[in-house]
Structure formats: structure tokens, C-alpha cells
């Protein structure tokens, strides 16, 4: 029984606005699942459907084995949710919010321990939430989500309003929860964040799932061009000829550094060998393909076509938008 499983989940608003189309998604227990996409891609729609805030036009979804339509209370008893952009109750203190969550879930717990975990200990806990900054409100929401040691955390844009330190704490917290066996499903349009904590990533664009795979596998299959920089002891006389190495796109020499753009990460090793045979390499700087470039290719029509020509399996992502809509094929 997966933590989340959606089957053909579809949501249309009115006659013509398709917010989510035919979503098939599986989140396993204990998995940190990043749900990525630009604003308006359907991320919040999906989360609202999982929580029964809105109702599917077609398809169905189960959370922890419970149907979202008929067993929503059981779902909400066993998960923690950080809603997007929700304001806390201005006139209640942080402590009262957490206490309310405990009462609603009918669980006992250490209010202070939870507030401490999300960095709202001491005076902040007894201040009214109306005086909280956006980041503090977000942390309070996370604290409420942690009540009752849920099996699944659903976090909608958890880093909204957080400063870099707060975002790092949030990531630590997600990791801690995951280490505890809690599945974490979180949406984000911030790539770094997803890249740093997720085991698995889904990319949503215009209501359609365009990728769903392990982060490494996605990188492996869909990295396009990537750079490797080699520091050498002496400035190479003339140009560095990497012609014999397959898959090299471009070579640039700058003082003691040779920067090579490769078609694929696999090419990097050949480049290093080739250069090392001819020059004294002092350092190798290899940049991992960022999720950003991947993301841009998936969510930007033109970029997608370009990216698709780089890898053989990526061919499915090119051409008609309808092809890109079939995530299973794209991702495998």
C-alpha cells in the first residue's frame, strides 16, 4: 500500500479549464517525493484533491490506502498538512494553534517539543500569530503538521516566506522525518530545494505529468549538455584538440583552465583521460547537471525540443505536446 496513489486523477474547472489531467502518481512509504512545476501547473490542485478540499472530475486517489472522497477523515487523522499560503489565526498564540491541532487529532503530545523543533520556542510560542512574520507563520504551520507523528507529510510550497537559514532548517526537518519512516510529499517551484532532499521527483506542467522518476535516473537519462573544467599546470600551447573524443560540443581555454562542454555526463571521463594524457591536470571540476536545466526543458516548449535531440531516449519528449504528456514513456 503506497503512501499516495492517484489513478487518472483529473480536475476541470468549468467547461474548459483543465487544471489536472489524467495524473497517475505513486509515492511509496518513507519516500521524499518532490512535486515540481511552475506556478499554475496543477500542484496545489493535486494537493487539494488529496485532501478532499476539491473533488475530482475523473479518476481517483488513495492516501495511505484510504479513498480521498469517502475516507477523508481517516486520511487527515494520519497525515500532516502544511497548506499553501494559509494564514494562521491572528488572535491565537502559536501554542494554541498546536494545541488545537492536538485536540482535533485527539492525540496527546509535547507542545513545547514541537514548537521547539520548528524554531518557535520561548516567547514566540506565546505570542499571537497575527504578529508572526511570514516565515514564522510557515513554521507554525509545519509544527501543526507534525502533530500526532503522521505517516505522511504533505507540504505545499513549504519554503514560502522562509529565509535561506529557515529553508535549510526546513530541509533538515524533512530529512529527519524521512529518516523516521515518514513519507514526505512536497510541492515546490524552487529547484534547489527539491534537488537537495528528494529521492524522487515528478514534474508537472500545465496539468500534465511530464516526468516521474528517481532523481539520479532523471539526471542520467535527461541531462543534456554539461560542463567539466580541468585545471592544468601549464597553459596549453595553442588550442586543445578534443576532436578525437566523441560527444564533445565545445572547448574553451582560459589561462590554466580548459572548460569542455559535453553532450552527456558519460563523456566527461573520456575528456579527463584524453586531456590528462597530454597535459598535467591539477584539478577536475565537474558540475552536476542541475535540475534547473532539466526542469526548463520539461516545462518550456522550445527548450524541450532542443533537449530531446541530445539523448536517444529523450526522443519521446520531442515533437507533439501530446507525446510529452505521456510521462511513463518520457521517464523510462
Amino acid at each position: 500500500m503506497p503512501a499516495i496513489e492517484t489513478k487518472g486523477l483529473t480536475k476541470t474547472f468549468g467547461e474548459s479549464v483543465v487544471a489536472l489531467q489524467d495524473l497517475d502518481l505513486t509515492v511509496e512509504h518513507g519516500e521524499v517525493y518532490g512535486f515540481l512545476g511552475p506556478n499554475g501547473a496543477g500542484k496545489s490542485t493535486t494537493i487539494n484533491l488529496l485532501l478532499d478540499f476539491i473533488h475530482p472530475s475523473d479518476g481517483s486517489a488513495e492516501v495511505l490506502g484510504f479513498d480521498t472522497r469517502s475516507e477523508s477523515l481517516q486520511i487527515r487523522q494520519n497525515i500532516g498538512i502544511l497548506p499553501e499560503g494559509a494564514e494562521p489565526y491572528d488572535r491565537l498564540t502559536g501554542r494554541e494553534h498546536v494545541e488545537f491541532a492536538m485536540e482535533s487529532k485527539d492525540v496527546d503530545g509535547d507542545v513545547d517539543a514541537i514548537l521547539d523543533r520548528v524554531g518557535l520556542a520561548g516567547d514566540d510560542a506565546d505570542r499571537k500569530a497575527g504578529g508572526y512574520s511570514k516565515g514564522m507563520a510557515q513554521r507554525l504551520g509545519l509544527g501543526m503538521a507534525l502533530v500526532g507523528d503522521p505517516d505522511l507529510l504533505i507540504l505545499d510550497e513549504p519554503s514560502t516566506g522562509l529565509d535561506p537559514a529557515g529553508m535549510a532548517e526546513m530541509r533538515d526537518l524533512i530529512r529527519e522525518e524521512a529518516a523516521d519512516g515518514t513519507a514526505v510529499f512536497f510541492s515546490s517551484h524552487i529547484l534547489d530545494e527539491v534537488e537537495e532532499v528528494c529521492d524522487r521527483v515528478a514534474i508537472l506542467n500545465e496539468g500534465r505529468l511530464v516526468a516521474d522518476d528517481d532523481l539520479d535516473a532523471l539526471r542520467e537519462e535527461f541531462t543534456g549538455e554539461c560542463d567539466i573544467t580541468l585545471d592544468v599546470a601549464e597553459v596549453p600551447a595553442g588550442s586543445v584538440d578534443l576532436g578525437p573524443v566523441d560527444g564533445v560540443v565545445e572547448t574553451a581555454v582560459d589561462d590554466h583552465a580548459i572548460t569542455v562542454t559535453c553532450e552527456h555526463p558519460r563523456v566527461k571521463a573520456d575528456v579527463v583521460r584524453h586531456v590528462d594524457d597530454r597535459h598535467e591536470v591539477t584539478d577536475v571540476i565537474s558540475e552536476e547537471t542541475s535540475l534547473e536545466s532539466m526542469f526548463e526543458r520539461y516545462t518550456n516548449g522550445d527548450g524541450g525540443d532542443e533537449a530531446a535531440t541530445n539523448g536517444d531516449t529523450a526522443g519521446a519528449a520531442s515533437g507533439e505536446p501530446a507525446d510529452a504528456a505521456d510521462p511513463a514513456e518520457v521517464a523510462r
Partner: protein
Amino acid sequence: MSWMAIARKDFRDARRAKILWGATGIFLFFYAVLLLTSSQGGRSSNEAAVDAIGGLIFAGAFLLPLVIISMGYLAIAGERESGSIKYLLGLPNSRREVLLGKFVGRSALALTAVGISLVVGAGMLLFQFGTVPVEYLYYSALTCLFAVVFIALAVGLSALADTRGKAMAATIGTYVFFSFIWVVPGINPNDSVAFVVEDLLGMNATPELYQFVQNLSPVFAYGGAVDAIVFGAPEGENPGPNTLDPAASDVPFYLSDQFLVLLLVAWIVVPLAIGYLRFRSAELG
């Protein structure tokens, strides 16, 4: 039982707003104006006190709903607008429990304001007339019921609205309809029913029917019930339109005082039920 947690939270949240003290202040101001300025005028102190209570009916029936509505109209719609309803419904609270908890919490809030005012009002009666007649007890009970009616109305309508503006329009509109439109000649229900019955259907005038229709407004049901309790049976000459004699054998049940109370109870149940039916399946985007 999470509706209790919701009611407690809601009461606590709303209590800290200025509305509670604002409402209590408004009620007390009117009680002071109406009770402390009435004079004994040669009657027995009890009679004068009862008359003074009668003087509260109008203010109660028309002013109290406005204040009570302001305490309840944001109960659900406000949370939908701010998004905090996602906290409420992200926790294992059913929508029925949310509505019930809101109704109970806001009722407690309204009854706190009304209760304080009624107790101070009793003190004013004692000060002015040296006595608190038993009618004041009935008046208080009916006024509390009336306050809860408008909380139910406000919370029920709030559950139909997704924004503050819609909730305000719906509650104020309903109030204006059942208070002011209800007495505008030509379009009020009395005249409308009379037009249908007498002019269109060509039947005889049926005063009981008109009275019944008049009582369907919670404002007039409350006014009629207090009137009947305070002034009792009409004394022959010039009975008020709402003054009914429960003892008179020809008064049908649907015009009796008990039925007025029943109507008020219906005004609690029906708006909440309508609100629930819509809220139950509402999409909270």
C-alpha cells in the same frame, strides 16, 4: 467530538476581537437609554417596569440582529477567504463538525454579550423601578433565543459564501428582507398574500393567514412572542397586530405563542441545514 475543540478555538479567537465588547457596549447603551429614561408615571412599579420591558421590543427586534450578524457572518467565509480553513479541514475535522463548532462558538460569543447586557439591564430595572418583574425573565430567554437565531442565520449563510463580501451581502440582505421589506406597504408579504388571495383568487380575506405569514419573519416572530409575553392577552380594545390570546379558543395553533417559539427554533435549524448541505460539497480552492 472535535466540534468542541473548534467551538472552543473559535470562541477564544473571536473573544479577543473587539467585537464582543463593541456589541456589549451597544446593547448596554440602548438599555440605558430605554430603561433609565422611562418613568413610573403613577403606576405600580411592577406595571411600569413591564411597560419599560415592552419598550425594549423594537430595539431588540431591529438592532440586535445587526449586531449579532456582525459576530457571525465571517464564521466560515472569513476562514475561506484567509485560507485558514485549510488548517481546519486539513486536520481530521469533518465539515459538519466545523459548522457545528462554529455555530456553538459564535453562539457562546453572542450569548456572552447578550447575557452581560441582560444582567446589567436587570440592574437598571431594579435601580429605576425597584423591582425586576418575572416578565423580564421570559423576555431574557426569548432574547437569547433570538440572538442564537441570528447566529444560526449568519453562520449558515457564511457557509454558502467564499468571500467576506458575499457573506456580508447575504446576511444583511436577509436581515433587511425580513425586517424592513416585511413592512413596506404593497410588497410586504401581508399585502402580497392579500393580493394573491383576494384579487387573483377572489377569495375572502383570511386574517389568520396574513398573521401567520407575518410571523414567518424571525424578527416579527420574536417581536410577537415578546409582545404576547409582556403584555399578555389583549384587553379588548386595540389589540396589537401581534398580540394574540392563547386562551381564546378560536386562535389556531399556528398563531399561538408556542408556535412563535417553534418558528424561532426552525429559524435556527433551517439556515444551518441549508448551509451544511452546500458547505458539505463545496470546493475550497
